[in-house]
């Protein structure tokens, strides 16, 4: 007993979530604890307005990348909360995005065939994406929620690997490997002289991402977040407190899947096509990389992560283009180099800086603040 006791306390100490007090709490830029829900929505809206304005500074290609990053943010933030708050690991969030994307495509195409246009054709497909992905996520969550750790990870891995097989088995509906074309509601008439298509797509993507992040910002400050933490840290204690661990896990998985579905819907909207190749295992793992790089369980980290996973492949393919390589070698490097870089980053971050970019930034600001308060008494 005497030998195990110190180890147990050490584990409990390390496992206990760090509760930042005082100034550090202010670093939750998106979710300071003192704000009311209405204030949080106002801040979210303000940030969205600034982001919409910033799109005027970008060229069409950069706007397209921004829209892709915004779509990824939806899935990454959901995955980040899932891993960080309930301790469930999904390797198949790309498959949930695909479910959302296909739902978006069918709804949008059907509304187009029915001759329904306007805002309805923009909003309804996103709702369909949300519902279908949440339903699938709930199903997967139920199968995986009763056990911890590797089971859910393996199940979601099987899901994402079965996606191409599903698409070709039901190819008359899902369009096989080639996927299906999505006809979408274009930008409103009065905007067509002011902004380009890519910029409008970025606007839609940013708006969806703002809704997702805003909702999650409310969620992490709600009693539900405490229940998740309780289930993650000590299931027996949580159960004794009247919390149903299965309900909490399945609920969070469904919410996380809904966010991923919205992200998939955004991708379907901006690329106007859905194919299984776009939502493969590699993309799924990229989402996990983004979560870890940014900082598991934090919303600001999700934004950092989305920026990194969109920027790094651009940078590596720019590098391979510059290098004087044979056509075959540069073709092999293209894509694979980014995967290797991400793999290395994932391992290094997990071993050296498990709190990710968000943790590093928080530590830096904290250090600066301490230095300032240490300097303060010297001011005459």
């Amino acid at each position: 007993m005497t030998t195990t006791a110190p180890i147990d306390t050490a584990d409990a100490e390390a496992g206990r979530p760090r509760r930042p007090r005082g100034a550090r709490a202010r670093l939750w830029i998106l979710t300071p604890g003192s704000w009311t829900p209405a204030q949080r929505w106002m801040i979210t809206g303000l940030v969205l307005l600034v982001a919409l304005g910033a799109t005027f500074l970008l060229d069409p290609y950069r706007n397209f990348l921004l829209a892709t990053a915004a779509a990824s943010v939806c899935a990454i933030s959901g995955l980040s909360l899932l891993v960080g708050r309930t301790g469930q690991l999904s390797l198949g969030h790309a498959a949930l995005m695909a479910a959302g994307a296909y739902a978006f495509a069918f709804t949008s195409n059907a509304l187009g065939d029915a001759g329904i246009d306007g805002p309805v054709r923009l909003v309804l497909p996103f709702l369909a994406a949300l519902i279908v992905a949440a339903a699938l996520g709930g199903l997967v969550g139920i199968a995986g929620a009763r056990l911890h750790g590797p089971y859910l990870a393996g199940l979601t891995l099987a899901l994402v690997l079965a996606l191409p097989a599903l698409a070709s088995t039901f190819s008359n509906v899902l369009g096989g490997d080639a996927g299906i074309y999505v006809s979408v509601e274009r930008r409103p008439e009065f905007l067509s002289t002011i902004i380009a298509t890519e910029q409008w797509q970025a606007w839609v993507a940013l708006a969806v991402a703002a809704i997702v992040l805003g909702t999650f910002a409310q969620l992490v400050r709600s009693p539900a977040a405490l229940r998740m933490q309780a289930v993650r840290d000590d299931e027996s204690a949580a159960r004794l407190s009247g919390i149903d661990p299965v309900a909490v896990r399945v609920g969070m998985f469904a919410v996380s899947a809904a966010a991923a579905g919205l992200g998939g819907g955004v991708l379907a909207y901006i690329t106007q096509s859905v194919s299984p190749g776009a939502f493969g295992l590699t993309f799924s793992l990229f989402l996990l990389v983004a979560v870890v790089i940014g900082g598991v369980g934090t919303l600001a980290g999700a934004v950092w992560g989305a920026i990194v996973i969109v920027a790094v492949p651009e940078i590596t393919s720019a590098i391979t283009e510059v290098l004087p390589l044979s056509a075959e070698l540069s073709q092999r490097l293209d894509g694979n180099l980014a995967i290797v870089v991400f793999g290395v980053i994932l391992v290094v971050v997990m071993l050296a800086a498990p709190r990710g970019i968000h943790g590093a930034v928080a530590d830096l600001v904290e250090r600066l603040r301490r230095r300032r308060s240490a300097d303060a008494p010297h001011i005459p």
Partner: protein
Amino acid sequence: MSTFLLLLGAGLARGAVFALFALALVLIWRATRIANFAQGAMSVSAAYVAYLVLMGTGSFPLAILTVLLAGAAIGFAMERALMRHVPSRSPLNSIIVAIGVVMVLTGVLGILFGADYKPVAVPFSRQPLEIGDVAIVSPYTLFVFVVVAVVVAGIALLFTKTSLGLAMRASAFDDEVARLNGVRVARMRTLGWVLSASVGGLAVLLAVPTELGLSPHSGDLLFVNAFTVAIIGGLDSPVGAVISGLFVGLLLTFVTTAWGATIGPIAVLVLLVVVLLVRPQGVFSLRKARLA
């Protein structure tokens, strides 16, 4: 009748390979309580080394020896350089590090060898032998059976009849008590990884001739299949791994023969969902489900 016998043989051979790969997963799980998600990529890397040796010398026995040694080296490096240093606070940490290793290995293999399938030639005929007019089983299938049987028997002997096996079981069962009794637990863990990676590499090398060929992603689906097998068998039951491996191999062979090869991954997914919903602790595991 002849078709049925052929399918039975092919299915059992496929299942034997699944069983071997699942056994590799079970070995690491028992030794360290880690589900090694990098098993597929590690084994495929070892198989690529063996492929180079096979191309260079043309000797299949030498390739088998190489895959065992290369697998052992990769397992050793993985445990000593990475897994030992992963904070054990949450079981997710080791899975995430393993995923990082998967990305590095598949990416590097893709850069070195390209994405196309490399055929692996074997010195055994894939044509079935005939007794009278009835085709029964191909020599390669028989060879796979013999190799798997030898390896499984060897592992069983190691764990039940030797003091090394006893030490490994002790450190997996309770590392604190094992350490107090003079077992070098860290060394036993490394040994578990070495053993498991060797067995996994062998499984991939045996599987490749019957599949499309060797590619950086050969391990992905094999891993999911073997993971399903290990879940059905119960992650800590070697006997369960072997029995459910043969069962899943048979099932997949009959299903894909009836409805085409693309149905395979879907069948595995459905099987995994059903097992997790109905009996999450595994069909062959008598113990209560572990929560960690």
